[in-house]
């Protein structure tokens, strides 16, 4: 699957490319990423909350294998606190995306996320916090500044332009 296809569908990991601090970039990417709003839509709340809900169910042992990754955290805190951090992080990103039309990285509530990792909260409190953030994300969706859906034609034009720009600038890689 192409990255842009994942991003246009609201895949949280793919959308992070548009908002994460860059370790390396080029003119091609700078031009391409200058309009992150092309990849954002109100409908993206669904995959974000879908991922978060699915992970919350696993955390609570309601779906699949419970705490399959980090037995040492379960021994220490009673549940996988790193997994819980990512669940709450996803709900928070869904809310910010709907309210502000962006995802801030690193997360503004990173101190809270680290506290979650360190086991400050009970599993019941994690569930309650997740439920609250989910409700707020859905409320924000109704008044979100984002369009109802992404403009796939505009994304396709941007993709084609990026390829042609890169190939034109890359010696020995262009079509003779």
């Amino acid at each position, binding site marked *: 699957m192409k990255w842009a296809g994942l991003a246009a569908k609201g895949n949280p990991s793919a959308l*992070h490319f548009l908002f*994460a*601090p860059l370790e*390396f970039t080029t003119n091609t990417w700078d031009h391409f990423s200058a309009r992150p709003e092309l990849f954002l839509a109100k409908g993206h709340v669904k995959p974000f909350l879908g991922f978060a809900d699915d992970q919350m169910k696993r955390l609570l042992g309601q779906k699949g294998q419970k705490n399959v990754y980090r037995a040492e955290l379960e021994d220490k805190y009673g549940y996988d606190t*790193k997994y819980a951090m990512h669940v709450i992080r996803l709900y928070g990103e869904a809310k910010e995306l709907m309210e502000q039309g962006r995802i801030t990285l*690193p997360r503004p509530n*990173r101190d809270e*996320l680290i506290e979650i990792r*360190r086991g400050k909260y009970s599993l019941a409190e994690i569930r309650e916090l997740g439920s609250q953030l989910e409700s707020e994300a859905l409320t924000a969706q109704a008044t979100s500044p984002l369009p109802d859906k992404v403009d796939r034609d505009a994304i396709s034009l941007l993709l084609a332009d990026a390829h042609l720009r890169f190939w034109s600038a890359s010696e020995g890689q262009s079509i003779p």
Partner: protein
Amino acid sequence: MKPDFAQYGFVHQENLIMACIGGSQAHGAKLGATDDTDWYGLYIPPPTKLLGLNARSILFSRPEANSAATGHKMWVSAYIP
């Protein structure tokens, strides 16, 4: 600084157009050196690799590769845009 994905067997190093670190580090929730480092990148293959008869898999992924420089675990994934 441009990351060296080639050390993990990535053959399109010169075609990277961006790279970033994801996961806990990107979220600001990394705890010490206990977490893996999740590298992500995008690359645009040469036309013949993308459009030609011998076009191959376009997703490169090397989970849990060990960095030659640090010995730390790395997850390296590169996608085409």
